[in-house]
């Protein structure tokens, strides 16, 4: 049992900040720290919890300095670190941005508006959907995208995990401690996940694999009961009984708000230069939301640091 203290003391929002950072994950937190270090006043706007997606990870084992740390703890530590450094946090959701003038305007869902000279977008990513019939209908009825949140509803039941990357395999390992059987269903004949996770999964008795298969449809009555699978090699279509299905087939960047305001690539990721600046002067982006090769906590933090230190040099000194 743990006890999360949540957001810090509420402070009255000021009208203006040197840098508004949208998102309090590792990218946003690192940027906040580097901004304060550079002598400017940043505000981090976070809609849920400090640390962002880190909170969804059971253990983080590849962030230097922490051999093994729970996602919640690392997330909390990051928030604490930034706050002790003097970074101001506000909890709410950004619902509109105006980047058209030198002074940027950010509107929040609680009705408040803040202005800033620079903005850092660190909104991260959310799980990508499969896009098959039944997925939407059974969302919250056996289709889930968050094992940490929903795993316990499938105690001693049979669940499927769709995907073969690090997240899919990590989540399968988490679920294997709760569910009776976990089936990893992957479109290829081998996993894409890092070897350490693969080894763990292959050595877990109640994790089983269905290779070369894709989900064509999710079926059920009131809840998920069956997946329609197609074998990509043989073309054979089979029905597979499950109680729940967890989808981890990649990420979707959270960039809906920024469409037509800054340049995005075909997948919706924000395009930045080497300083993590977007095509709009004074608007930066960092972390999972940008176009890049490796999306990890450490690369998110690095992006944030690069963006904030450049912003300080370019726009404030």
């Amino acid at each position, binding site marked *: *049992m*743990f*006890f*999360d*203290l*949540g*957001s*810090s*003391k*509420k402070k009255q929002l000021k009208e203006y900040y040197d840098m508004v950072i949208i998102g309090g994950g590792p990218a946003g937190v690192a940027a906040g720290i580097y901004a304060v270090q550079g002598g400017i006043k940043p505000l981090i706007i976070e*809609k*849920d*919890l400090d640390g962002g997606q880190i*909170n*969804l990870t059971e253990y983080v084992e590849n962030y230097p300095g922490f051999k093994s740390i729970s996602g919640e703890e690392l997330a909390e530590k990051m928030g604490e670190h930034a706050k002790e450094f003097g970074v101001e946090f506000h909890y709410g*959701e950004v*619902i509109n941005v105006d980047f058209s003038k030198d002074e940027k305007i950010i509107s929040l*869902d*609680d*009705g*408040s508006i803040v202005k800033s000279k620079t903005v850092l977008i660190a909104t991260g990513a959310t799980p990508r959907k499969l896009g098959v019939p039944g997925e939407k209908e059974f*969302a*919250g*009825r*056996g*289709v*889930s995208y*968050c094992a*940490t*949140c*929903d795993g*316990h*509803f*499938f105690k001693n039941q049979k669940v499927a995990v769709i995907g073969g990357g690090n997240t899919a395999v990590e989540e399968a390992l988490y679920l294997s401690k709760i569910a009776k059987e976990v089936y990893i269903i992957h479109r290829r004949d081998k996993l894409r996940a890092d070897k350490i996770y693969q080894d763990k999964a292959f050595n877990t008795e109640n994790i089983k694999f269905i290779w070369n298969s894709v989900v064509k449809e999710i079926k059920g009555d*009131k*809840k998920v009961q069956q997946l329609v699978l197609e074998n990509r090699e043989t073309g054979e279509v089979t029905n597979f009984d499950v109680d*729940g299905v967890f989808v981890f087939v990649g990420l979707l960047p959270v960039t809906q708000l920024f469409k037509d305001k800054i340049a995005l690539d075909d997948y919706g990721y924000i395009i930045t230069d080497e300083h993590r600046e977007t095509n709009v002067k004074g608007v930066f982006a960092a972390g999972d939301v940008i176009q890049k090769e490796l999306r990890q906590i450490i690369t998110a933090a690095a992006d944030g640091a690069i963006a904030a230190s450049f912003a300080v040099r370019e726009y404030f000194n």
Partner: protein
Amino acid sequence: MEKLLDEKTLEQVRDLLGEMKGRVRIILFEKENCEYCDVTKQLYTELKEGVENIDLDVHHIDSPIAEEYNIDKTLAPATVILASNGSDLGVRFYGIPSGHEFSTLLQDLILLSKNGEVELSEDTVNKLKTINKKMRLRVFVTPTCPYCPRAVLSAHQAAMINENINGEMVEANEFYEISMKHNVSSVPHTVIEVFENGEWVVKGEFIGAYPEPNFVEEVLKAVEG
């Protein structure tokens, strides 16, 4: 029993709750053979002893006092928190507010110490105030769900600004039957019910933590429906 909140955590809690403006009263309803009743009582006792401005009453869930507060007797431990002026603004927790929900509890204590001075936009407040039907917002959560506190806090704040509304957290792991009844398998899952002809009728539901305007929209849609 070992302490739930160590001294360092308690110190941080004291710091956060330094914002409280008056005393608030936590009322816990418990019963026998209840997995989480004792630990919930321990949590509140540690808060009461470690923090200023918190009073605690403990009653049996079958006591007449539970009826006064319209407590669902099938769901123990049940918690009511009264505002500092002693009024019941409809804030309920069914199950233990542990994990990420502990943060919701702390926020509630602060808001209720200011007699329900909510942190919502004027537009949201005005819209929610128009509701003249008795309704309850039941937010199903798990303690490990990072998105859940926001959904619960929305429901609780709606309760604070309109006496017709109750906002209830329901810890889904503890209450299997009612979770199954509403087909809960992803959290946060908010069930919106209206009291009609002597019973609660489900009028709407949504999954996920919605931004304020969308939350209000869902609630209003349910009232009209």
